[in-house]
């Protein structure tokens, strides 16, 4: 009990006495945790955007002349992967053609009867499901032909997939770096007191008693860094999202406070764990060195 009280006092004293170094450590930890948090938010947003883009994946199924459009829609709805369907009548098709090729579409009308086929627009959940769905659609008796923007959509999702993968790699590198940086910082901070550790053990301090203040110091610094990073992250993220939403209204950015709250919590936990482990590892080595007799 008393030992813990003394350790807290000494840990705090270590921080205050070397406040310049403490500030730098906190700042370093903060940068690293900020990078981790930012990468995570980036990945999550990319994922969100990708999934919303995937939502827009549609397959156009043209029906045979005289086919029952309602029955066809029902049959297609029953297929796996299909998320949404929309029937498009001849008139609607003409309207679309007109908007696509301009007034020249009137020429088509010269035929007297609208020659365009009825079709059904099908939405699926994922880019990977498009090809499979298309295969199934061919088997539907009412369907004569299918058209889907396979390439373009896949291109888009693949770019996003690449971005996502890259970000995850960056995230892992950042986490590894954070561990190393904290470990390094705390270890060097202990390093400058290697002699003191020896003296303390010479006058009867147990290794735990000696290690505790350093561990507490490292823990507080790491925690402070993570906390600051969380605050900064939430702040900049909301500012950024607000501006980005104006710029890119069609992109679905994540705005839930639940998410950022969770992320901040995770960062702080991560900071606490990493700093605790690295302090322990850092101080352990010196304890062992100091207690090794000549």
């Amino acid at each position: 009990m008393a030992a813990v009280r003394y350790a807290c006092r000494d840990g705090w004293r270590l921080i205050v006495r070397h406040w310049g170094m403490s500030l730098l450590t906190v700042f370093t930890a903060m940068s690293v945790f900020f990078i981790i948090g930012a990468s995570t938010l980036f990945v999550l947003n990319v994922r969100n955007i990708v999934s919303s883009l995937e939502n827009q994946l549609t397959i156009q199924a043209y029906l045979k002349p005289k086919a029952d459009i309602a029955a066809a829609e029902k049959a297609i709805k029953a297929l796996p992967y299909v998320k949404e369907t929309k029937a498009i009548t001849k008139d609607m098709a003409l309207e679309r053609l007109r908007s696509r090729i301009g007034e020249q579409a009137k020429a088509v009308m010269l035929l007297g009867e609208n020659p365009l086929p009825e079709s059904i627009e099908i939405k699926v959940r994922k880019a990977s499901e498009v090809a499979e769905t298309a295969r199934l659609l061919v088997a539907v008796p009412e369907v004569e032909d299918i058209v889907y923007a396979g390439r373009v959509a896949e291109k888009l999702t693949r770019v996003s997939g690449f971005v996502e993968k890259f970000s995850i790699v960056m995230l892992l590198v950042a986490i590894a770096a954070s561990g190393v940086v904290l470990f390094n910082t705390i270890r060097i901070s202990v390093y400058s007191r290697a002699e003191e550790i020896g003296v303390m053990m010479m006058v009867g301090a147990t290794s735990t008693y000696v290690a505790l203040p350093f561990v507490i110091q490292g823990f507080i610094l790491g925690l402070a860094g993570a906390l600051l990073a969380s605050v900064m992250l939430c702040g900049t993220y909301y500012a950024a999202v607000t501006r980005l939403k104006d710029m890119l209204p069609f992109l679905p950015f994540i705005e839930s406070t639940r998410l950022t709250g969770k992320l901040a919590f995770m960062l702080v936990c991560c900071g606490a764990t990493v700093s605790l482990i690295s302090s322990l590892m850092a101080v352990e080595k010196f304890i062992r060195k100091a207690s090794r007799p000549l």
Partner: protein
Amino acid sequence: MDIKFSGVTKIFEPDIIALEDIYLQVDKGEFVYLVGETGSGKTTLMRCITREVVPTRGQISVGGNLLRKINRFDLALFRRDIGVVFQSFLLLPNLTAFENVAFVLEVMGLPPKEISERVSEVLKLVGIWRRRNLYPPQLSGGEQQRLAIARAIVNGPSLLIADEPTGNLDTHTADEIMQLILGINAAGTTVLMATHNQYLVDTYRHRVVEIHRGRVVRDEEQGRYELNGGC
């Protein structure tokens, strides 16, 4: 606590023989001067007792415990029962004089009030109470030495090891400190004191063990300082 060296040899890598085949028995409550020219091995002998140094050969037992067999945790407890005045003081530079002494008691988990009382008492005893709030680098050489002595005696150890405890003290203060150590010895603490102070050894006569090139070359009750070396 009694001390027993049996055939202790310490060779520092690669070939410095600091101690050679030492047999030494110090009984509980004894007062022993350790003398010898510089570099003869006095400090090394003392560091063997605190297990700062482990002998290359031979065995040491202190207070009935074989040092070789003691584990890491027990070693900490064992050291709490020994007071050491290191030749180079080894004070904690980031703690004030007061805190340096208090540290020894904090390690033992004493309540703050008792710590404060005992530290005050011992700081007054060695005469640096006025300097209690300074850090070791701000103290004069003699004040640091007295602080080191205060730290060594604050927890009433059963064994006091003092390595050159008067090297930075003027003759008068040295005499005072010597009286203090003799008082502690009179109260039952075994004292082992390495010194070059001829005046003290010749004035306060006690057992003298002379080391020369790592060997015990003289061991007499009520001895004098003179260094005969091997002769």
